[in-house]
């Protein structure tokens, strides 16, 4: 089975994502406020326009009503019927704002605005110079034609949508601008690693091959120890080389999945790292049962190597590494320095290191995470500061060879 998976390591770290989220939240809030403000201004201007159109009509009605009031005042109390009109309704209030008479549909009048809307009606107030029937304020009310309102809302929604799209494009542009320095610095680091990686392979291979070929039988103990140190150093660099190669070159290649004998793989890798573990007097305790997994051989090797390498690197002197392999999971447990539980989530981030006294770029666990995610495995980390770390990897159902 050939799986096309090119899930790379995440380019952005958690802190960078947090900054990006904050920037986006701020941008969205500002853009929303700006659009709301513009919408409100536009609505108010349209309302004013409608009022100015209605004012002429209302003013004419008011003048007409004043004449009727004048005649009624003159004939009062022989005539006591308040004027009625089919086009509008009116009311009169005295100088103390006490109602004299009203035919208004909405009794809540506003003395301080000349024209205003209230409950689907438009009211207009005229201040009288001659107080006919004691009236200082004459209110004229007409039914509101809400066509302008519908048109305005349609315009606001249409223009708002267009503006949102344009501002979203600007937002993407700003986000790219905002992220460019971060991307540049990460790309620079990646390119540096990529370039230097090419130069590491040949000398490391030569050193390791020659160390293997050397006849240790005839060596004095002092030289044997020196050779062992050379071997450890070369293997450390070799391990780093493989990580870097995977990170910069291999992880984007097409996966070549096959059934891998995990017990055999574990034994090989433990043997490979035995000399490194021996330097810190770290012992292995293996409980390995037969298990297979359908996976790319290079990728599962990177997972196992990195977990064992970390277990050695962050172990105490004369510590213990317990590796348990079952049919559907394996556990690598060390008696090392451990980390605080809050930091567990961060340990898989690229270029993150919790102990600067140990070498490395902080890329090992990031590689593990990317492979785990690619194959939808489950990883669980339990760590207690000063006591050690236990990492359990569960295989997805179907990944295990049941045949």
């Amino acid at each position, binding site marked *: 089975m050939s799986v096309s998976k090119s899930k790379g390591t995440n380019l952005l770290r958690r802190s960078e994502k947090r900054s990006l989220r904050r920037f986006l939240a701020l941008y969205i809030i500002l853009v929303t406020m700006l659009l709301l403000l513009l919408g409100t201004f536009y609505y108010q201007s349209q309302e004013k326009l409608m009022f100015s159109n209605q004012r002429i009509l209302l003013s004419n009605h008011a003048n007409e009503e004043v004449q009727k009031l004048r005649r009624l005042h003159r004939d009062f109390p022989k005539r*006591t019927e*308040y004027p009625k009109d089919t086009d509008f309704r009116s009311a009169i209030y*005295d*100088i103390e704002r006490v109602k*004299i008479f009203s035919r208004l549909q909405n009794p809540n009048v506003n003395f301080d605005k000349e024209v205003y809307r209230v409950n689907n009606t438009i009211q207009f107030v005229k201040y009288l110079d001659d*107080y006919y029937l*004691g*009236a*200082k304020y004459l209110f004229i009310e007409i039914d509101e034609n809400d066509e302008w309102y519908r048109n305005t809302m349609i315009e606001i929604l249409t223009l708002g949508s267009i503006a949102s799209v344009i501002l979203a494009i600007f937002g993407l542009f700003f986000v790219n601008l905002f992220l460019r320095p971060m991307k540049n610095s990460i790309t620079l680091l990646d390119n540096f690693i990529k370039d230097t990686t090419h130069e590491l392979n040949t000398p490391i291979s030569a050193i390791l091959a020659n160390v293997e070929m050397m006849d240790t039988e005839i060596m004095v103990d002092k030289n044997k120890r020196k050779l062992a140190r050379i071997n450890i150093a070369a293997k450390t660099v070799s391990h780093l080389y493989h990580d870097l190669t995977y990170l910069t070159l291999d992880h984007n290649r097409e996966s070549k999945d096959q059934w891998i004998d995990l017990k055999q793989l574990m034994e090989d890798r433990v043997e490979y790292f035995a000399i490194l573990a021996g330097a810190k007097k770290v012992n292995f305790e293996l409980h390995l049962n037969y298990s297979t997994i359908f996976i790319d051989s290079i990728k599962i090797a990177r997972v196992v190597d990195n977990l064992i390498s970390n277990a050695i690197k962050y172990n105490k002197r004369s510590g213990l590494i317990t590796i348990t392999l079952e049919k559907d999971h394996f556990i690598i447990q060390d008696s090392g320095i451990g980390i605080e539980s809050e930091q567990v989530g961060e340990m898989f981030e690229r270029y993150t290191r919790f102990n600067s006294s140990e070498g490395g770029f902080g890329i090992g666990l990031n590689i593990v995470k990317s492979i785990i995610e690619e194959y939808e495995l489950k990883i669980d980390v339990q760590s207690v500061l000063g006591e050690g770390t236990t990492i359990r990897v569960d295989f997805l159902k179907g990944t295990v060879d049941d045949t």
Partner: protein
Amino acid sequence: MIHKVVLITLLSLVVMAESTTVEAKQADSNQTEAKKQNLYELRCIPCHEHRPYSLERVYMLYLKTFSGETIFKASLKAFLKEPMEETSVMPDEWIDNFSVKSKTILTDDELDEVINIYWDLYDVRNKLH
């Protein structure tokens, strides 16, 4: 049994006394109303009923000039206490013919009473429909 009869008799007396008091109060009130009405009729109507401008027209003139109840009553009271050509709302021809009225002899309380009667009598709010 005797106690019960005495008690009922006493209660009946109390009820009768109470009803008598209410009737007396009602009679007093009617008398006061009549007195007020009389004051307006005694002090205002006799002079104005022979004038070309009726009290009703004067009211409408005041209403057209002052609009609100408070200012209407205050202005009228001030004018009655100190009548002047400058503060009169009557047309100039009217003043030329009949001159400004003389100062009132009513007390402040009496003035308030007659003005209230006057306001209520011609209040347009109660008449419009």
